[in-house]
């Protein structure tokens, strides 16, 4: 495969894999409740996750070290173990929510019993992850996930007031209940900062044998892939603001978020968005299951990697299988995937600073990074976002309680 095609595929994969159930839930609800007033949270969150991802990718390409390898080394066994357990718990809850999300979309498409679809999805992911090599897991899910770009068409077709949209990129705390506004701000930022995304991105860099020549691909993926992912996130929020806010609808079901495209684009729009959701959430399911296995294997020093046959990294293989089985069982108990998503996203951000800090320290250490050590801009942005995400993490749980998970 030519380098250009490889880079294009990498970028398209990043766009298609950018949105998952957490983004759909929070962007849909924020648009329905506050119109465009929370648009500014999207670039703020995405620049932050971009800074974190770029550093993680650069550290992986330069020193061959993924996130939990650094967590253990920089924080030591004791604090690292707390970070691991918190990260695993949130990754597992996210995984359960993603499996539930896949089952909901399948139910909307095929009208079969939900419990049966959850079980079917669990088994299907077991087979797919077992059989597919790493790069195909990314492509099989992320490329059809690009169908979500229909939200961009819908947002433009709905002909919003572009001045009001522009004003949405300026913080406006008078837009409604300030606590609820803060909760959805934290939710949007936390959904873009889902920790598993970085665990997966950095481990994927090592899986694909990234070295110094891949540093440009790392930057391209972050800037274009995730930058265009931000456009998609913006379109989802604009669509929700245009369709749901004037009608007083709160999209508490995943299917309601999808309906936002049916009004401007008809059934074809709805079908495309459901296919996009199925594959985007499906991709996140595979990524969360694998992330759980990457984390524990890297922390304890087990052999790991999807580039190996299952028996070549046996405890790693059992770990992702166990994650998948546990996630399927959790959602089979009848928990609501949307509520579980909100819970996992908001609590998950609490674990982020502990995995962010080791990466930031390593990226700024010339003994690891040589000429790829953080420059002044990277360091400033890195420490700014560390402070920012720490504040968001501190505010997350009180806001979850005070707003009764956004119910007011």
């Amino acid at each position, binding site marked *: 495969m030519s380098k250009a095609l490889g880079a294009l595929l990498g970028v398209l994969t990043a766009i298609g894999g950018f949105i998952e159930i957490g983004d759909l839930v929070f962007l849909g609800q924020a648009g329905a409740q506050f119109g465009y007033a929370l648009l500014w949270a999207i670039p703020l969150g995405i620049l932050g996750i971009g800074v974190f991802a770029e550093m993680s990718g650069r550290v992986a390409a330069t020193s061959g070290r993924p996130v939990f390898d650094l967590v253990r080394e920089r924080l030591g*066994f004791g604090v690292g173990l707390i970070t691991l357990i918190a990260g695993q718990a949130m990754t597992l809850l996210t995984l359960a929510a993603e499996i539930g999300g896949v089952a909901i979309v399948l139910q909307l498409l095929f009208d079969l019993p939900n419990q049966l679809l959850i079980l079917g999805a669990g088994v299907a992911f077991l087979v797919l992850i077992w059989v597919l090599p790493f790069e195909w897991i990314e492509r099989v899910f992320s490329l059809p996930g690009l169908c979500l770009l229909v939200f961009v068409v819908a947002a433009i077709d709905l002909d919003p007031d572009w001045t009001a949209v522009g004003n949405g990129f300026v913080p406006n705390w008078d837009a409604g209940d300030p606590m609820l506004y803060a909760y959805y701000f934290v939710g949007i930022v936390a959904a873009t900062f889902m920790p598993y995304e970085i665990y997966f991105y950095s481990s994927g860099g090592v899986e694909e044998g990234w070295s110094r020549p891949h540093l440009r691909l790392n930057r391209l993926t972050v800037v274009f892939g995730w930058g265009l992912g931000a456009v998609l996130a913006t379109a989802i929020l604009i669509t929700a603001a245009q369709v749901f806010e004037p009608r007083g609808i709160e999209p508490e079901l995943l299917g309601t978020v999808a309906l936002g495209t049916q009004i401007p684009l008809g059934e074809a729009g709805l079908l495309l968005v459901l296919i996009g959701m199925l594959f985007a959430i499906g991709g996140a399911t595979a990524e969360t299951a694998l992330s759980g296995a990457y984390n524990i294997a890297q922390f304890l*020093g*087990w*052999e*790991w990697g999807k580039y190996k046959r299952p028996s070549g990294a*046996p405890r790693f293989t059992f770990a992702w299988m166990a994650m998948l089985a546990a996630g399927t069982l959790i959602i089979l108990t009848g928990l609501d995937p949307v509520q579980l998503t909100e819970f996992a996203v908001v609590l998950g951000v609490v674990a982020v600073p502990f995995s962010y800090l080791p990466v930031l320290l390593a990226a700024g250490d010339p003994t690891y990074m040589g000429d790829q050590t953080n420059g002044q801009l990277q360091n400033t942005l890195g420490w700014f976002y560390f402070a920012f995400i720490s504040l968001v993490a501190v505010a997350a749980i009180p806001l979850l309680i005070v707003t009764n998970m956004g119910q007011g």
Partner: protein
Amino acid sequence: MARYEQIDLGLMLMDRQLLDATERRCGKVDDVEIGAEDRRSSPQARVDALVSGPGTWSSGNRGPLAWLFARIAGSGVVRIPWDDVEEIEHAAIKLRRGAPELGLGKGDDRAAQWLRRAPRS
């Protein structure tokens, strides 16, 4: 034996990934055994061995969670003489011998026996 005049134990050895002679990941450095070099004029510390395994997790100041984790994971400990250290690499510590010979990676070996029965394993 790999010779290093000066080693930062915290950053260069502790919690580092171990790679055996076939590049297989086979554990972490959980502890370091230090000996005294007998130079009467200026006594110096010397790394005698690396130690790996859950039996070390409850030692030191690692907190109650690590203690609990160690109770669950068991008491296995493997001592890797410094003579078996080939090189301290950027991402890992490379060993001269294979993991089975050193007694490392037993958990993966046991788990592999189960997986080999499955198709496309």
